[in-house]
């Protein structure tokens, strides 16, 4: 809401400095967004003196003026009849922006260069006379800025209003708040009309067929109108708040809209068929041309203002082209109505039409302000257009809007606010902004809010008014007593934080990517058609195609982050993200949200340093990270098994593993598939893992218990087997494990070798078995026998041989 200081001063004496006013408004809840000088557009307009005038060689109507602008003289071509030698004038220089939007440039007019423009008062937005150049006081020195020379000063304040304060969508509304702050009187404009005949009823009528959508419709009629430009004072008011003057009739409706906050509409009465108004809803499929000459498709619940036959306006939103005020309009019907706020909002939304009128109606105008605004507009129109008021007015009022009467408890107020106000203090505060307050029984007040405060319905609303007017900052700080009964921290949160810390400890940088991905990202991963991750949840109104569906995987985000960093020449990356993925469960149902952890390692194994040469990372680097992570989380019975080749389409066959814990599949690990690399525009490979946090959480034990430290020494024995190269080491270790020998404490694989002297197609696997008893020192003899038995079984089971 833009308000000019000069206009505000019509209704309230402003005693504060601008800075204090701005602060005071902000602190009562009318947040000031910006403060500006209304006349900054005149910054490039100077006082000039015409030193010489010559006729234009190529045009009889034009003159060539030599204008002194202090710093020198410039040549200006001018067409004004009153331009003459020695006249002091206003000169706009190139770069100046005039109120009609013209940006001044150096130009050549009929072959003669012109370096500026000598302006009329109309062109400068300083008056209505456009017949000649503005003559200014000859005593003013050429070169002075016109703004300072004419002492033009007005401040425009832009206020960011919250939706609950439609009463402040007017100059009078803001003035009322200022009066309340200053505790000074507010001067309302005179809105009473003499005469109370009913001549109007013989000329027109208003029929409301949809009283729920239009609880009140008032109208007044004027005859003998002369449509013309408005007087300067009226144009000036509109210009001060950035509204464009049109003609005296439309300008008055806009003036009253800004002054009182009541949207009005003026119809050309003689263009209304049957000379009457019918308020009804539209019929389905109806098409209507609005003032801006656009065709609008109407739907059945839209409220229309109609004449005897056709719609003439979309109620509360925009008037129609067919009943618009025209230069020849003689009779005018002014509409002032109260419309149902949510109906107006729905219509405006559907049509994509947000107007000054709809903006106010949907927030709620003063239901009792209808006639006041109507009278004010009628009076002004009569004054400036020479019209005659037809006696009487129509006020169709089928559904009175009730004003609430609220019982406000003084102690309840103080308890909610933490204050100690007396009943009279509360009453005085509320009365300062026109609330009607009466004392009641039991330390209560009976409060009737003024009709324009449509936001005040409950005692709490009044308490806010009390707090706001006394100043939020004057309420003392207190501290609540919170019961000491701490609940356990949320396990999801503590586990997630621990996982993050462990990943950071493993050298990974946490990333956060958008939860939406491109609808094509499933294809980029190469997901099969029946992959559950194809069941995405689509956003109906995405910002871009790249953010069109909710992610079902964290992998696209990781790959895009890798891609971005590669373009910034950052090649060594260890990244991870924890976040939700979303799976559709059906139309109009909340999706299933599954929390995932995903990590990526690309580039070098070691941080670049003089100690090591650069080695590329591989599968086992990242596997080590996953193993450490799960071990630190005390997840038991973790195993990695080969992922069947076509199981995961975005990891490379043969270099992909399934991660399980206690028989539950919890994730996967692998190298990114070359196809996926290409589709994500990646020139370097990367290894990734994904873990399903929701499945992992139950596997993380809540408690931890320590084991006794062994008392007896270990005995170790090594074994080397030569087996087929496709036999997985895990199978061999698992086989030992399944022998359930209680003396085996640990198994450590320490060497795998292929190549000479091992025969082709075979490999050697060496591992150490650590034996220990918890009750005695083991004898060599016993262990040798046991070790031999174990290796013997393995030789048989895996068709293995011993090294030569």
């Amino acid at each position: 809401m833009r308000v000019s200081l000069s206009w505000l001063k019509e209704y309230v004496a402003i005693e504060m400095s601008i800075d204090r006013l701005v602060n005071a408004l902000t602190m009562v809840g009318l947040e000031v967004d910006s403060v500006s000088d209304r006349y900054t557009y005149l910054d490039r307009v100077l006082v000039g003196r015409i030193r010489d005038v010559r006729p234009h060689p190529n045009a009889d109507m034009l003159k060539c003026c030599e204008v002194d602008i202090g710093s020198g003289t410039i040549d200006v071509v001018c067409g004004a009849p009153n331009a003459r030698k020695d006249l002091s004038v206003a000169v706009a220089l190139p770069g100046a922006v005039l109120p009609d939007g013209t940006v001044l440039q150096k130009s050549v007019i009929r072959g003669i260069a012109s370096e500026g423009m000598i302006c009329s008062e109309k062109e400068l937005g300083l008056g209505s006379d456009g017949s000649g150049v503005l003559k200014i006081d000859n005593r003013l020195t050429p070169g002075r800025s016109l703004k300072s020379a004419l002492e033009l000063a007005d401040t425009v304040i832009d206020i960011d209003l919250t939706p609950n304060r439609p009463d402040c969508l007017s100059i009078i509304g803001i003035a009322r708040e200022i009066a309340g702050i200053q505790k000074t009187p507010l001067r309302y404009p005179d809105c009473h009309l003499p005469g109370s005949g009913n001549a109007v009823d013989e000329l027109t009528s208003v029929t409301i067929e949809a009283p729920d959508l239009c609880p009140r419709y008032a109208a007044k009629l004027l005859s003998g109108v002369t449509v013309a430009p408005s007087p300067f004072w009226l144009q000036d008011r509109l210009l001060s708040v950035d509204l464009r003057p049109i003609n005296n009739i439309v300008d008055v409706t806009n003036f009253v809209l800004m002054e009182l906050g009541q949207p009005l509409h003026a119809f050309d009465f003689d263009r209304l068929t049957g000379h009457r108004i019918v308020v009804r809803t539209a019929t389905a499929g109806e098409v209507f041309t609005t003032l801006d000459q656009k065709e609008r498709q109407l739907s059945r619940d839209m409220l229309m203002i109609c004449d005897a036959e056709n719609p003439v306006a979309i109620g509360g939103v925009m008037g129609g082209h067919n009943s618009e005020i025209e230069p020849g309009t003689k009779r005018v019907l002014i509409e002032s109505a109260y419309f149902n706020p949510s109906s107006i909002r729905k219509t405006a939304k559907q049509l994509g039409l947000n107007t000054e009128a709809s903006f106010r109606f949907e927030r709620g105008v003063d239901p009792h302000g209808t006639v006041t605004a109507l009278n004010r507009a009628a009076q002004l129109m009569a004054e400036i257009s020479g019209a005659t008021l037809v006696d009487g007015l129509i006020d169709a009022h089928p559904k009175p809007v009730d004003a609430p009467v609220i019982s406000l408890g003084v102690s309840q107020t103080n308890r909610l606010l933490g204050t100690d106000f007396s009943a009279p203090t509360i009453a005085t505060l509320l009365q300062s902004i026109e609330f009607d307050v009466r004392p009641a029984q039991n330390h209560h007040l009976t409060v009737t809010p003024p009709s324009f405060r449509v936001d005040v319905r409950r005692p709490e609303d009044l308490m806010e008014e009390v707090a706001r007017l006394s100043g939020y900052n004057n309420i003392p700080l207190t501290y609540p007593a919170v019961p000491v009964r701490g609940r356990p921290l949320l396990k999801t949160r503590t586990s997630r934080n621990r996982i993050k810390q462990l990943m950071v400890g493993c050298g990974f940088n946490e990333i956060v990517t958008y939860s939406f991905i491109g609808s094509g990202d499933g294809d980029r991963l190469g997901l099969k058609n029946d992959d559950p991750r194809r069941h995405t949840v689509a956003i109906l109104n995405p910002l871009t195609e790249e953010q069109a569906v909710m992610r079902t995987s964290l992998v696209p985000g990781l790959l895009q982050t890798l891609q971005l960093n590669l373009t910034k020449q950052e090649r060594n990356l260890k990244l991870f993200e924890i976040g939700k993925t979303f799976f559709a469960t059906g139309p109009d149902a909340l999706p299933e949200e599954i929390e995932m952890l995903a990590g990526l390692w690309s580039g070098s194994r070691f941080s670049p340093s003089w100690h090591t040469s650069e080695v590329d990372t591989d599968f086992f680097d990242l596997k080590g990270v996953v193993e450490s992570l799960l071990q630190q989380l005390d997840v038991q019975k973790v195993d990695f098994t080969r992922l069947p080749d076509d199981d995961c389409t975005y990891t490379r066959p043969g270099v992909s593993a399934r991660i399980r814990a206690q028989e539950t599949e919890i994730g996967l690990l692998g190298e990114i598939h070359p196809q996926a690399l290409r589709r994500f525009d990646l020139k370097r490979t990367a290894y990734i893992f994904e873990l399903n946090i929701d499945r992992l959480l139950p596997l993380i034990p809540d408690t931890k218990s320590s084991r006794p430290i062994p008392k007896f020494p270990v005995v170790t024995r090594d074994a080397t087997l030569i087996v087929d190269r496709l036999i997985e080491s895990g199978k061999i270790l698992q086989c030992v494990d399944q022998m359930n020998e209680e003396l085996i404490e640990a198994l450590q694989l320490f060497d795998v070798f292929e190549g000479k002297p091992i025969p082709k197609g075979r490999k050697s696997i060496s591992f150490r078995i650590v034996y220990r008893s918890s009750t005695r020192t083991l004898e060599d003899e016993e262990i040798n026998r046991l070790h031999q038995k174990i290796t013997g079984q393995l030789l048989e089971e895996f068709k293995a041989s011993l090294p030569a």
Partner: protein
Amino acid sequence: METSIEQILEEALKALDDASDAESVKALSVRYLGRKGAVTLFLRGISQMPPEKRAAMGKRANDIKNTIDKALKDVVHRFETAQTGLEARIDVTLPGRPVPLGSLHPISRVTQEICDIFVRLGFDIVEGPEVESDWYNFEALNIPKNHPARDMQDTFYMSDNIVLRTHTSPVQIRTMEKQPPPVAVIAPGKVYRRDSDLTHTPMFHQVEGLLVDRQISFGDLKGVLTTFVHQMFDERTSLRFRPSFFPFTEPSAEVDIVCVMCRGAGCRVCSQTGWLEILGSGMVHPALYENVGYPAGQYSGFAFGMGVERIAMLKYGIDDIRKYFENDIRFLRQF
């Protein structure tokens, strides 16, 4: 016998004087004080002596043992502190072998910091879904359909009734539905608004707070949020509470802090106002109690919500909100 122990002492001290390296000192230590060393043997022999001499001789022998021991240690110390040979030197200015550590995203760091403060104050942490029904995100929070308050947040829709939550406030409703007062919770999480420009990203993070009990006042709200701001920033950071509007609180207050960059003098960050808006807050609107089935008139409480990105920007001097989601490693490594 007496001379014998004195002789040992004399010999030992002389031998130590002559010792040229740590090796020979070690040998001397064995020769005199070892298990079969001269002093040790002498001490063992004391039991064979006449009883009247034993005490005096024992004491003297022990003194000598201590003297030799001290002399040995002194010589060892002398050798150890002597300048080492040049061949033993290393280039201590070479960088150490890197132990790479990663980093937490700044949003995680700040979220955790905010949560820690409130947990210390006695709040529990709760979480809720990111895709929400219209009821939890709007209706139950007193934001009816076709109400202008809906314009305050541009919404991503999945269907007429399913939205990406535009704030963490739905967690207020979900929590109160499950639990009678007293309720003291905070709810951190991702939120989404259909807005993308220099100062807005379509996804960002909030921390919501809710405290409901029998006698909670606006003064309490001021007290708790002042404590929070003082812990999050510092005790010098002053606050102001100014009236505002949220459909789910009444009275509602916007909380500004003195600009952490210019300390109130006015700068680019605070648009010359000297103040920065960091929190929305207010007393829980009675309509919410009705919507979750709390009995009317018995409870009061406050709620607040803050943007994590904004607070992180102020704490770390980050100038562009989009940096959080670009994940440029050169940005992430700074945290």
